């Protein structure tokens, strides 16, 4: 792989790889802060409408959320494996694992679309469009407004993650990465793991308790 033009300021590729990884970790920290604002809004509205929130959570579509939880956990596993196999110089297996990850991401989005459809049928839409007879309270309105915001933003990140994974797959197919030089590959896998970690926290507060 041709060394990038600024390579001469690094003492070697390992140093450049480490810097790229460190830069990625800072970006991940910054990305999680984006969700921090929504978690703060959720916590505040939950503090305001405590009973309505627990009631609304029981009415939420637990099945879809749980399926998505397992889907993302598995995708995190496959993308971690893809990095391990790349480091063992088995690009075909890496490619397969990447495609599996992207597929799981697709499954997540399909399940999410079905879930949204059910919410639309129920009338559990955000803000002034909310008209679900079963839960005519303010708290439910606030819960589903936050539900749509949090899962919507997360779904956008899942789509971005799928694009990143497919881009990694294309470059793996073109044998751009070797066991010694794959810093950008690892950065892509880190981004996908971030998407999974986000859902780890969204799942309990929107579906479980």
């Amino acid at each position, binding site marked *: 792989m041709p060394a990038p033009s600024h390579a001469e300021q690094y003492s070697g590729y390992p140093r450049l790889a480490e810097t790229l990884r460190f830069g990625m970790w800072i970006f991940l920290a910054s990305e999680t802060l984006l969700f921090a604002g929504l978690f703060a809004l959720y916590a505040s509205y939950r503090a305001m409408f405590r*009973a309505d929130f627990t009631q609304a959570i029981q009415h939420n579509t637990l099945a879809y959320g749980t399926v998505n939880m397992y889907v993302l956990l598995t995708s995190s596993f496959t993308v971690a494996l893809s990095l391990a196999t790349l480091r063992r110089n088995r690009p075909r297996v890496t490619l397969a694992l990447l495609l599996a990850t992207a597929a799981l991401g697709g499954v997540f989005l399909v399940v999410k679309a079905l879930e949204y459809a059910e919410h639309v049928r129920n009338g559990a839409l955000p803000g002034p469009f909310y008209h679900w007879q079963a839960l*005519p*309270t*303010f708290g439910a309105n606030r819960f589903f407004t936050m539900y749509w915001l949090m899962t919507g933003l997360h779904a956008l990140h899942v789509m971005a993650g799928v694009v990143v994974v497919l881009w990694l797959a294309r470059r793996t197919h073109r044998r751009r990465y070797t066991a010694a030089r794959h810093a950008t590959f690892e950065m892509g896998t880190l981004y996908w793991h971030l998407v999974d970690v986000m859902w780890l926290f969204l799942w309990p507060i929107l579906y479980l308790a």
Partner: protein
Amino acid sequence: MNQLMRKLLFLPPQASSMAGEIDALHYVVILTTLLGAALTTAVAVFFVVKYRARGPEAERPREKPAPRPPVWFEVVVVVGLFGLFVLWWIVGFSQYVRARVAPPDTLDVYVTAKQWMWKFAYPDGHSSLGTLFVPQGRPVKLIMTSRDVIHSFYVPDFRAKQDVIPGRYTTIWFTATIEGAHQILCAEYCGTGHSTMRGQVVALAPADYARWVGQAAAQDLSSFPDAGGAATGAPSMARVGERVAADRGCLRCHTVDGTPHIGPTWAGLYGSSVPLADGQAVLADEPYLTESMMDPLAKVRRGFRPVMPSYQGLLQAPEAAAVVEFIKSLRDVPPAAAGPMPPPTGPLPSQPVTP
């Protein structure tokens, strides 16, 4: 000394009970600030003049590195400064809490802020636009809400300010000490007319205030839109509230003499602690009463079925305030054994009974 400092700092007259002590803290803080800035700059100028680079000796490198102030000096400065700031916080926070939490027996006035005007509804039934009449020397609590965006009720003479938030009640209290007119300004940007949204607090001597209350009551109350026929002299807000409660069917479920009925009795309700269905208890104050009218399912009283319909959109703000005043006027009627009542006799309200 106080007047001198006040004029020096261009502060408006201290026209409320809290203004004096707030200004005292103000003088201490501002003087320290001026002193600190001047002192720091003076020391810097002195050092520059004293240690200017003179002669060739300044060109050669130093024998030993320049001296550092001893660590204890730095620690003393930091701890001393931090102590001073924390002291300001302690005084400031105690004044802040006293300025925010109203004393118990206040004259309550309902304020409605609307894009670019202030509207005041008094407990004895009438309302005024833009001008708030208050008795001098008596604490007044304003219960404020906004019809559209965030405004901020600001009276410079009282050193008092509180944002007025739509959909919520915020309160502000003051005791006017100087008679006369004190300007009200809107301090939170609220659109094109933000700078013209002004009003006046007129503090009257107790005698004048009594005469004003009498004289205002004698006026025709057509200005009170939904009061219905106000033929019998000057109805107080409580009487208006009673008529509204009768018209809107409140009294079909709520009794006023303590006997149990479908809904909890209003006798002795105001100021009592209401046990809720989910085990908590809440103080029956204006916000709770208003909330129970608009969103009855939020805090259902223990032992009563949640059957009350919402009066959202059916009761205007002045009418809701009137009903609350009526409930407050029943404060000292002894509530009998106010338990749940036997199965209802009259027709239940239209809303289906939620599980």
